[in-house]
């Protein structure tokens, strides 16, 4: 089925329970619509259909700019190499299907987050969150 990547480690989905006050959205959601759905929600899961679809990161960023402090999860086709970008855009964790996890073992994800602090944007502007709230 799927696995959660948390702090670079693989964790079974069951071991990272999320609040029932959650919504799952597609990356091309209309943002005004999203804001309407956000009432009382503490977890937003954003589906990522392809590594070339960068909208999920902008949606996450938008939510953080709007003051959303809840849990953000990127779910779907996220590559280990994109993991730092996803975290730096405001996501807390990532959910990937088992077949992707098989091709991209845990070591790759752990390796990817090694240098996450070392980026230009956190030096230049603080409007880009460097890591989503844990």
């Amino acid at each position: 089925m799927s696995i959660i990547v948390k702090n670079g480690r693989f964790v079974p989905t069951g071991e990272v329970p999320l609040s029932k006050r959650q919504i799952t959205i597609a990356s091309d959601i209309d943002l005004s619509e999203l804001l309407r759905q956000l009432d009382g929600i503490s977890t937003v899961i954003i589906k990522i259909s392809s590594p070339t679809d960068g909208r999920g990161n902008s949606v996450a960023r938008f939510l953080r700019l709007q003051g959303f402090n809840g849990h953000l999860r990127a779910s779907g086709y996220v590559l280990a190499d994109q993991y730092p970008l996803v975290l730096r855009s405001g996501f807390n964790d990532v959910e990937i299907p088992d077949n992707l996890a098989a091709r991209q073992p845990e070591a790759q994800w752990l390796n990817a987050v090694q240098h996450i602090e070392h980026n230009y944007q956190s030096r230049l502007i603080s409007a880009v969150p460097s890591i989503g709230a844990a």
Partner: protein
Amino acid sequence: MYIYNEFDEAFVRNRVEQFRGQVGKRIDGSLTEDEFKPLRLMNGLYLQLHAYMLRVAIPYGSLDATKLRQLAMIADRWDKGYGHFTTRQNIQFNWPKLQDVPDILSALADVGMHAIQTSGNTIRNVTADHFAGAAADEIEDPRPIAELIRQWSTDHPEFQALPRKFKVAVTGSMNDRAVTKAHDIGLRMVRNSAGEPGFEVIIGGGLGRSPFVGKVLRDFLPNSDLLPYLEAILHVYNLSGRRDNKYKARIKFLVHEAGLDRIRKRIEKTFELMIVSYSSPSEDLVEGIRRYFKTPDLTIRNTSQYLKYAASNPAFLSFTETNVSDHKNANYGIVSISLKPIGGTPGDVTSDQMRLVADVAERYGHNEIRASHEQNLILPHVAKADIPAVYQMLKTGGLATANIGLISDIIACPGMDYCALATARSIPIAQEISCRFDELKMEHEIGPLKLKISGCINACGHHHVGHIGILGLDRAGAENYQITLGGDSTETMTLGERTGPGFSAEELLPKLEQLIHSYLDLRIDETETFIEVYRRLGIAPFKQALYPDHQKKAA
């Protein structure tokens, strides 16, 4: 120029290791080719007709002797002994092997260079006026801003998977040599009525299949608002740019389809949201960047030898008339090195030539070299007293062609000889044109004329903004070349007008000759340039010259 500090150095080294890992994962199957593709593109590696092509970033075109010598070494060690300078101030190597690329990136990192984000759907190399910091007509040097934008855009987490590529250019002069109006974002450095520095922000320009002249998004953006404003533009584009059709995915289409006013409202609203949580880069950081772009010490040097030499040597005089531009210091000149030798491939330089330019720059050029979008190299600071020696040295390497701005100073894309996208060859056409007008000894008589050739509708040769533009297509299996006229790549950007049906490769040169002859007949005197005649008389007389039978029928 900008020198890497510890942070920059660590960043590129890490990036090289990251890419080495990605190549390994491609080879062992952890990554499919489809998954590897966006990752390799983020590091400037294309797969082309015959081989991989590596596009190395030259931020705002700035090089020094050390960097240029390293590029020469790379060309010798891992390629075929030459490199190609592009229309976005980058350099390309056409023949690297995949397994060598991590080592090439490492060699680049050794001299503070990289190939990060030179391709892919991300923010590309930030380009700037190639005369920056030297031009007599400059209001302000755009390079510190270009460097700030480069840092901000490098590995920006939100903008690595945009709908399409994104190109930014900056100019600090009213004479726009950076083609800002043909960029996704063009920035013109200006002052408001209170004398405060800021930018005119232009959006949605671009050439390619659907050329658009950029529109003014903001008349005046204060310097301090630059980064959050760019964030806002990219954020809106990333969310709303089309992802269903690669040929409609640039921001110019978003602006065209949604309307400038609507997009402006969204950007300004997003900007308001971002500015709340924004804090500017520290003064230290900004000042730290500016420090690298101070004008070198330009000692006063006598110009009498220069004038004497020009008076006694016609070839050198000719060189000064085309290849030397006005420097803000009257004792100095900006020397343009033509990479368009008669009959050569526009923009190509051998490793030996690179080393020669490095030597010249070190000895006479305050160790500064620029790559221009016109595919030439520039020595921005040369004392006039030294220009004769520079000229002699350049001559030894075939780099003293006195044709800057003339008909043989052609911008041409690689075309069908190299590129999988091409529909026609462009390089042989450029070579023929160059040879012919040299043979006829007409170049100087013709005067300033910007001729640009693209080998397909993607317009990488910028033909839309050539005074004469040539577009090579495929018509029923044969190469067919259309001519456009009246294009302009400057602050008065204009898209060229198509004259009519295309010509075969054999017909093209005689037709161009007719076109040139009609210009020479029509001009008031020898000071009226081709583009001036075109603007005075319009396309009609030129159409007549190209299609005389058609005109007869119509009469």
